């Protein structure tokens, strides 16, 4: 709590100084940057290259921001940290976490959406004969019970199966149960576990993409609190501008981006990080990502996600998307930043 209070005081002083300088020189001053922080959903890795690149290349600085990138971990969640004021922004993995958070009174608003397609996919061994969700009948499917299970259930339903037809079990950390064939179908994120499987030399796997079976939901939203949006819109705008620009640069210069990420964290392997960045980039540029631009808040996608959650009873019918999503900031991002190069 103390830290939060201290940050607020420091921030007030900094912005006051900033305002004076702004008045005096009529432009953002290099020595009076607004200090903000962003909380990642996982440890530092190429999945978050855009933020690290934006920081390293000075994209945030030119927006008048000094950004601290705080990594996540297996036991913290950015939603609470942003809501409490400990961090200014967070990357929220799933739309249901955002909506569930709002329902629980966390004043979170999505201001950009990084992935136009959900990174979760299902894999099966080729020799199992499983090709589509319809083949799941009587099989065991493992998935992440942190939101992804809703997508799996939606796929099952879309395939005309009942929930009881498939045994859905939680999955975490290791692909070993899938490799040892304790489960027939496992979940992967296309930027990590799929690459792990490939790196382990596993061949003959079928990748089943939810988007191909009517479950097409965006992911990895940048969120801020209502308060930040109301009181410091310029900061929000600056952060999104810088971040999108960072991503644009990272996708265009993947090797340099991986190098920047590798400097930020210890123990990463370059080839794996490169593969991660490539896979992540594909999801960013999928669908609306190319037509509208990087980071687009595609309302149709958010609504699809909400509908799935509604039908699964995860969120209440009265959930208001207009409060949860604010597309205005993204629309104000200069178009030269949002266009994939």
């Amino acid at each position, binding site marked *: *709590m103390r830290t939060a209070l201290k940050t607020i005081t420091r921030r007030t002083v900094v912005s006051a100084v900033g305002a004076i300088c702004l008045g005096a020189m009529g432009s953002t001053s290099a020595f009076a940057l607004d200090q903000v922080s962003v909380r990642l959903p996982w440890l530092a890795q190429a999945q978050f290259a855009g933020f690290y690149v934006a920081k390293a290349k000075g994209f945030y600085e030119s927006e008048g921001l000094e950004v601290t990138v705080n990594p996540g971990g*297996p*036991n*913290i*969640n950015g*939603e*609470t940290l942003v*809501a*409490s004021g400990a961090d200014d922004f967070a990357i929220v*993995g799933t739309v*249901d*976490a955002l909506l*569930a*958070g709002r329902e*629980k*009174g*966390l004043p979170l608003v999505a201001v950009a959406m990084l992935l136009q397609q959900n990174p979760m996919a299902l894999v099966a061994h080729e020799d199992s004969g499983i090709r589509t969700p319809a083949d799941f009948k009587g099989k065991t499917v493992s998935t992440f*019970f*942190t*939101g992804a299970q809703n997508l799996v259930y939606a796929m099952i339903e879309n395939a005309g199966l009942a929930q009881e037809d498939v045994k859905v*079990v*939680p*999955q*975490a*950390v*290791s692909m*070993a*149960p899938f490799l*040892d064939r*304790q489960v027939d179908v496992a979940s992967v994120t296309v930027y990590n576990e799929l690459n792990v499987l490939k790196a382990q030399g596993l061949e003959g796997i079928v990748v089943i993409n939810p988007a191909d079976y009517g479950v097409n939901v965006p992911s990895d939203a940048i969120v801020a609190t209502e308060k930040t949006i109301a009181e410091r819109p310029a900061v929000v705008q600056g952060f999104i501008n810088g971040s999108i620009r960072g991503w644009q640069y990272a996708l265009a210069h993947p090797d340099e981006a991986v190098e920047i990420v590798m400097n930020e964290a210890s123990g990463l392997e370059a080839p794996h990080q490169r593969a991660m960045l490539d896979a992540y980039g594909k999801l960013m540029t999928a669908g609306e990502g190319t037509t509208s631009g990087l980071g687009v808040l595609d309302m149709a996608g958010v609504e699809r996600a909400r509908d799935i959650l509604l039908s699964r009873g995860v969120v209440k019918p009265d959930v208001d998307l207009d409060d949860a999503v604010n597309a205005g900031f993204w629309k104000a991002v200069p178009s030269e930043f949002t266009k994939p190069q």
Partner: protein
Amino acid sequence: MIARASYPLLGLLIIAAIWEGSIRFFDIPPFVLPPLGQIAERIWTGRSEMIAGLSATLYEAGTGYVIGVAIGLLLAIAVSLSSLAERSVMPLFIAINSVPIVAYVPVSFVAFGLGAASKIAMVALTVGFTVFLSAVQGLKSVDPSAVNLLRSFGAGQMRIIWMFSLPAAMPIIVSGLRVSIVRAMIVAIVAEMLGAYDGLGRIIYEATQQVDFLRTWAAIAVASLASLVIYGVFVWCDRRLVWWK
């Protein structure tokens, strides 16, 4: 009895007052620190889930505990049979033991899967070492003249250990057993948080990820209440187990 219990109750009340007071005074939002009443209510409304989670965690912690105690005691006895054996294996054991248990968790997942087996293995490892080290220490600190007396009766090593050393080492062993109880629960929960099909740890992890903070708090409260009750039962039994003190 009432007077004795009133002091800890007073202590708890003070803590509860600080808790509730700081929520009001600092205006702490519930997702940072929820009021105690809400947590209690959430435990009640989610009781079936909590009971299921608790029983899974208890099963892992309990099974691992029993296995760990058995292995720890047997190893300690085997090692204390010969000073050469002790000198030979102790450095290795101390090295294995000084690796924080969490470091083994990922290996355990790959080796034993995400089910109960991997947690049981982790709990057994922690408990086993704690019991082993306290038993070795206890067996070493017994009165050598009593051992001599039994030897003069013609008793063999195993008999001496069974009739004398083990009971004499009991107070130290029991304190190891007591420490292990709470640790067994914590290890099971932490392992579950990193990957599990069941248990309170899984509830905590999922609730955290889904921003269901009350569910997180409820699961944590259930976990620590359960360990507290087990610990209390053990302390109560302990007075009977080492009755001659």
